[in-house]
């Protein structure tokens, strides 16, 4: 009798535990952090943009949201729509980089944050990933970090992987699609030139996202309007100029705080950063020399897309010891 009751008790406990697990699996929501960068629009590079020293005159180019970071944001937003959770966007850059944070809000980010400090200037990927890692730690709870594969200005593709290493979490580079998020696991399709790879990984983890992953959504008109005044304190004078009815910067701040439109700014001190590891001091990379290369085709040869044309090409490559 006694034993039987115990058995019933343990059975019902078991059911309860299973129910909790079931609930957890189905009410699981995921907190995402997206790391983004404002970059000069290198698609518009023209003669005037390059200086004689071979460096880029950044002010001559419009500043844009790094394209693959938009893909990363889109992937995070879709995960949120599918599974629930939050999306926090972080960028490190000059005060003007607040613009990409607003762009993120227009598309559906819940929270944004700007890391800006003169001390960050001159950071290479090592110093940048250290600062970003500390910012991620300050945000605290997260299941997923999304980054674009690489930025169009430096093309290093290093910051995402370095952040993952510094946080001691696994990384999935070249992510093209989240196939499934379940419990504390993610299944992701990675894109390669000649196919795809599907990997499974424990959370938390970091994904770097490729451009073929998705088509980033346009800004929502409602959010564009709702967040049009979202600003960092450095932008208050400009806001006051456009909207003199606020009368003072204090009143602007009061209004922005009331409407949750104040964009948080974190400095090196806010993040308790080791000054030897940030900015120029924390950057082992030194740019030795930049060459201004103009690509010119010396000679070109047209190969006909026919079996005969291809055969002739292969024979030539073998003859020249390129293959074979």
């Amino acid at each position, binding site marked *: 009798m006694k034993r039987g009751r115990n058995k019933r008790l343990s059975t019902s406990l078991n059911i309860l535990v299973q129910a909790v697990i079931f609930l957890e699996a189905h009410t699981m929501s995921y907190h995402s952090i997206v790391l983004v960068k404002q970059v000069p629009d290198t698609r518009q590079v023209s003669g005037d943009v390059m200086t004689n020293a071979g460096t880029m005159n950044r002010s001559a180019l419009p500043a844009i949201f790094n394209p693959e970071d938009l893909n990363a944001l889109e992937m995070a937003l879709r995960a949120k729509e599918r599974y629930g959770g939050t999306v926090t966007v972080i960028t490190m850059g000059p005060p003007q980089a607040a613009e990409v944070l607003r762009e993120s809000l227009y598309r559906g980010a819940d929270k944004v944050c700007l890391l800006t400090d003169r001390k960050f200037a001159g950071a290479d990927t090592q110093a940048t990933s250290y600062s970003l890692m500390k910012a991620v730690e300050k945000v605290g709870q997260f299941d997923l970090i999304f980054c674009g594969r690489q930025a169009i200005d430096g093309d290093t593709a290093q910051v995402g992987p370095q952040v993952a290493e510094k946080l001691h979490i696994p990384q999935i580079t070249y992510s093209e699609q989240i196939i499934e998020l379940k419990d504390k696991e993610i299944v992701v399709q990675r894109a390669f030139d000649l196919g795809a790879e599907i990997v499974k990984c424990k959370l938390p983890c970091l994904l770097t996202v490729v451009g073929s992953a998705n088509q980033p959504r346009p800004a929502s008109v409602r959010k564009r*309007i*709702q967040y*049009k005044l979202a600003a960092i304190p450095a932008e208050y004078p400009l806001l006051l100029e456009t909207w003199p009815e606020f009368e003072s910067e204090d009143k602007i701040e009061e209004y922005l705080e009331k409407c949750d439109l104040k964009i948080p700014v974190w400095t090196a001190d806010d993040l308790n950063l080791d000054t030897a590891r940030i900015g120029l001091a924390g950057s082992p990379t030194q740019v030795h020399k930049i060459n201004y290369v103009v690509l010119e085709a010396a000679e070109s040869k047209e190969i006909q897309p026919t079996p005969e044309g291809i055969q002739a090409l292969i024979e030539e490559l073998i003859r020249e010891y390129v293959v074979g």
Partner: protein
Amino acid sequence: MSENYFLDNKDLQFRLEQLDLQDIISIKEKGYRYAEKYPAAPRNYKDTKDNWRLLLEVLGDICANRIAPRAAEADEEGAQFNQGEVTYAAATQAAIEALKQAELMGAMLPWEFGGMNMPESLYQMMVEMVSRAEAGLMTIFGLQEIASTINEYADEETKVRVLPRFSRGEVGGAMVLTEADAGSDLGAVQMHATYDEENDTWRLNGVKRFITNGNAEIQVILARSEEGSSDARGLSIFLVERDETVKIRRIENKLGIHSSPTCEIQYNNTPAILIGKRRFGLLRYSMALMNGARLAVGAQALGIAEAAYRDAYKYAGERVQFGKPIRELPAVARMLLNMRGEIEAARALLAETGDWVDTLKGYEELLADKDKATPEARAKQKQASSLSDALTPLVKYFSTEMGNRVCYQAMQIHGGVGYMREFNIERHYRDVRITNIYEGTSQLQVVATISKLLGHALDKLLDEWASYDYKELKDMKNQLTRANEIFKQVTDLLKEKERDLVDYYACDLTDIAAALVTSWLMLQDAQKLENKRELARVYIKNCLLQIENRAETIRTADKTPLEVRKKLLEA
């Protein structure tokens, strides 16, 4: 810079700047009280206009970068029909998705139903941009008018159930009026509506034809609710949420707007909700619905014309013949100048009309509150009502005929290549052709306009415009003031004629009115914006000659053509 259909269009930006709806928006926004509750609601009028600009910028980006690049593909694939179901072309689906993501659907609905409380004037600008990108898509985007009609006339319970779904972009709307034997003559509609007492619902039976976007989930349907009646007074309108009793039988194979499915639909005992009062289906509600749709079609034609003009202008700059770009040849420049003038004139007329329609709606809302029903408010409402009634068919007529003229000339400028599928102009040419046919043919718009013109509906407005000080543009003012007199004289002259003659010469008087009204608007714009002056001069000179010509036609009106038509027309 990436392209943007709002930021690249100076005239459209000028129209937004000129749009002055301060009083109306204050009424619509209930003294800006909504700002407390809805994060995107404006705090004041300046904020409102800033929001409008942002909205148009977002839409302009989507139109230029997401919709237009796939317009040829949407046209080529078109809407498809398979086993009773309609599917949009892939490019159309992507376009709808982008508009949905941008939360642009249901923008005109009130805040409480998830809308953005946008005025008609702004909606026209949105429709123009969408149509410039892909004319067929406008019929899907533009049928938001249906939602506005439901908002205006349906009961609260229906509104709460249906409207938020429009705002979220979950459902589309269709205006289901036409039947095989009831096109221009909607009073002849046969579709049966019977009351099913047992289930306390109306039931619809019959077949509708030529229904634009007839696959939409929410349909507003004109049907005969009064057994034994045979005219417009026996018709009511109903709301149907499409279910398995609604069978799409086929879609039409059309000349243009291929992305827009035109459906033949059979209703089999379909449950329906009555909207508004019985017997007022055509006379009140459908007319209201159609008036909104007529402005939208006017804006659609304008958008297509804008696209055609830009293509022609660009091509004329690239195409070299006789040693120079053909743009430099006077004969080509003349066509381009004509097009440009007419486009800006149509945009001005559309804005003027939208302004009066918004004023009317605003004052109707105000007058609903008895405390605010002052004699001044009543007078303003009456004036806005009369001008909306006169200008709506006028602008539908003018803008859609203008769109056709512009596309005709734009193809002419392209020469032989314009006749080929490789260039966009042949698509614009096909797409624009429906605009002066659907939502009431041009001939019907003339009928609607002429009754107002003969009642001198525009005289007061024309006199008011003549009273302004145009400073150094006085010469044009004097010419137009004389044209006002000519218009009044021939109006009185035509009024005295018998019915057949009035109908025969109605288009002449309507053309005079369109030329005159647009000329005054162009003159006012020229005064505000220096770089519009030369174009206004070219446009107005053309109009004055036309007015004189048409006036002479009316002065010398005679019955001969009508009397001999039978003999002359026999094949």
